[in-house]
């Protein structure tokens, strides 16, 4: 049965009729068309579906849409400013932190939560913050370097 879900997505207030059994990932991808959030394992094991809920990283594939009623959701689409990449997006692009790209939105959202709480993280802090995100391509070294590079930059894109 569909009921009204009120929340904010990437800074915009929304009200949508959403089924009780809808997952946050299905709401984002199918109802809102925000397909940047990826469905990897689709079962809580890979981190590709990571979004921010009130600034905290959460797995959209394990979260019921109605359980985030009233909260503020941020997805990868919300990071760019006026068409410019965010510092993390730019760093992943410039430092080859992304290959096939499938894990990238989840990696960047998890890293975004880290940089907001710890602006200058150590390597160990980066590894710990990304420990729930799997990548099949890069071997992780370039991903960690990308987060380090982003931490050294201003947020306002050049």
């Amino acid at each position, binding site marked *: *049965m569909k*009921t009204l879900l009120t929340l904010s997505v990437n800074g915009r207030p929304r009200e949508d009729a959403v*089924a*009780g*059994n809808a*997952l946050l990932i299905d709401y984002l991808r199918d109802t809102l068309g925000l397909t940047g959030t990826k469905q990897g*394992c*689709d*079962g*809580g*094991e890979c*981190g590709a579906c*990571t979004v921010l*809920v009130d600034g*905290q*990283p*959460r*797995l959209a*594939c*394990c*979260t*019921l849409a*109605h*359980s985030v*009623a009233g909260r503020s959701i941020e997805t990868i689409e919300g990071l760019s400013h006026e068409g410019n990449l965010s510092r993390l997006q730019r760093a992943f692009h410039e430092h080859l932190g992304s290959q096939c790209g499938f894990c990238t939105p989840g990696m960047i959202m*998890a890293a975004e939560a880290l940089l907001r709480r710890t602006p200058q993280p150590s390597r160990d802090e980066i590894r*710990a*913050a990304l*420990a*729930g*995100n*799997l990548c099949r391509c890069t071997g992780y070294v370039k991903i960690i370097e990308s987060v380090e590079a982003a931490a050294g930059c201003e947020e306002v894109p050049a």
Partner: protein
Amino acid sequence: MGALSDFSVLRPASAADAVRLRGEHPTSRFIAGGTDLVPNMRRGLVSTDIVIDLGNVGEMRELQHQGGTLRIGAGVTLATLAADPRVRARLPALAQAALCVAGPTHRTAATLGGNLCLETRCQYFNQSESWRQGNNYCMKLAGDTCRVAPKSSRCYAAFSGDVAPALLALGAEVELLGPQGIRRLPLAELYVDDGMRWLALGADELLFAVTVPLVAGRVSGYEKLRVRGAIDFPLAGVAVVLRRDGDALGELRIACTGVSSRPEFVGGLDALAGQPLDDAAFAVIERQIKRTIQPMETTTVSVPYRRRATPVLAKRLVRRLWDEAKRR
């Protein structure tokens, strides 16, 4: 993974309302972080028509000092537990166990209560519907045989929560909220040695809070065996609480997880109080752990390995804490 079956979500604002709704809807399920329940529902391992979401129950997210105890609401997230300065300073085994659960993105959602009530796990159960059908199911769901103990009349799925052994070793109590109010019992009594019915929680009861005594002079820790450094459930987990009186053990409490259908407190260690921590003491620790645990083929990692590794984890941790207690 499969789609979720059709259900509706109720969002009570108080624990009392949650319990009342549970009484009105006997087939409902409580949900908190959802990191265990949602994947299990999507694999068809759990089904329900009504989900009672505890996310609005603020009273279950409180963490307070009360006299000589720390009272922790069942809705406190594992991320909060792992980071709380009081927990880290006074109950390090609990902070370390919380930090060992899954990955950081799970821990921001997953709760203390959810980890204590975690569905038992087995490599023959935590599979897709088609896999289980192809293997003719198992006793825990839709079948009649326990695949890891075919002659047995019970299921041997393993309890795999990390936080329970820490709280057992620390001597915690749980508060269960039912229609008649709160019932308190030692955490050990919450569990039953049965992979299908591992919780002694009444049908209309809600795990509401945990109280942990703060005992001066104790050091504690948690060690976990797993294939990867994150995400994985424990192949074995050991919590140790230790107090040192000079060159003798004052107190030693050990509990294990992942190696039985319930978290197990290791008995028979009281006699070590007043003794030095020598080879004889380590032999007692190893013997008592091996007597207590019962690892089965619930994971892809072999039973003999887990049998041998569990006491090794414990002995290493006891040694580390023994040295740490001396430095205090």
